[in-house]
């Protein structure tokens, strides 16, 4: 099984992507992955590598802690 089953990684990728007005395809193209991977990631079904997390943070003009956490994000944070 994938590691996120045991150690979930929470993320706010969808929220920040929407705030930046990007589609999944546009974000996927910007970070060099398939659009499906962004969907899996946003739904918490896939935990990205550090490199991909850094690329996503750069594409969304955000810091890693703003995007990913091992604890659930507080609503409206």
């Amino acid at each position, binding site marked *: 099984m*994938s590691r996120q089953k045991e150690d979930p990684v929470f993320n706010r990728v969808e929220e920040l992507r929407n705030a930046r007005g990007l589609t*999944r395809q546009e974000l996927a193209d910007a970070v*060099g*992955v*398939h*659009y*499906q*991977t962004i*969907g*899996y990631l946003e*739904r918490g079904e*896939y935990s*990205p*590598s550090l*490199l*991909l997390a850094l690329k996503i943070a750069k594409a969304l003009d955000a810091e890693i802690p703003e995007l990913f956490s091992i604890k659930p994000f507080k609503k409206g944070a």
Partner: protein
Amino acid sequence: MSEPKPKKFYWIQLVTRKQVEAALGDERPSRLRSQPVRRLLVVALSLSIILAAVGELVFGDGKLGTYVEGLALFATVVVYLVLRRSVRLLADAPTELLDERTVAIRDRAYTTAYWTLCFVAGILAGILIANGLSVEPPQGSAMLFVFFLTMACLPCMVLGWTLPSESTNH
């Protein structure tokens, strides 16, 4: 230095760049990519491989046996091609066309396929040993046939069995 030209055709995997890109980028929902359909294809492929291998043993070496084997072999090829499409050619896609998630899925499937193949090889070895390490030509060729077809199709079959249905909300 100019960058090398991207490959158009991958001879070992028997896929083209266009085919893989189209399969991975297809955003249209498809029933073919639901888990029940994929699993049905895996079962159909397993049965057609077995039938293609043992057709002659079961139905005799006359016309009927030959027809059954030929039909089963044709079904094996057709079902395999459909299954390949249903798993978005993941088992055959070269690494350079995949991303980290799809590479991880493909590599996990190959690991599972390897251990499953060891199990199949163990069963075939067991049959050989039970027969005093001697088999008649029809049985021997049937065993080899099962082994090689299984080897070729197994990564795709593992993907077909294990991949979840695709969410319509990609």
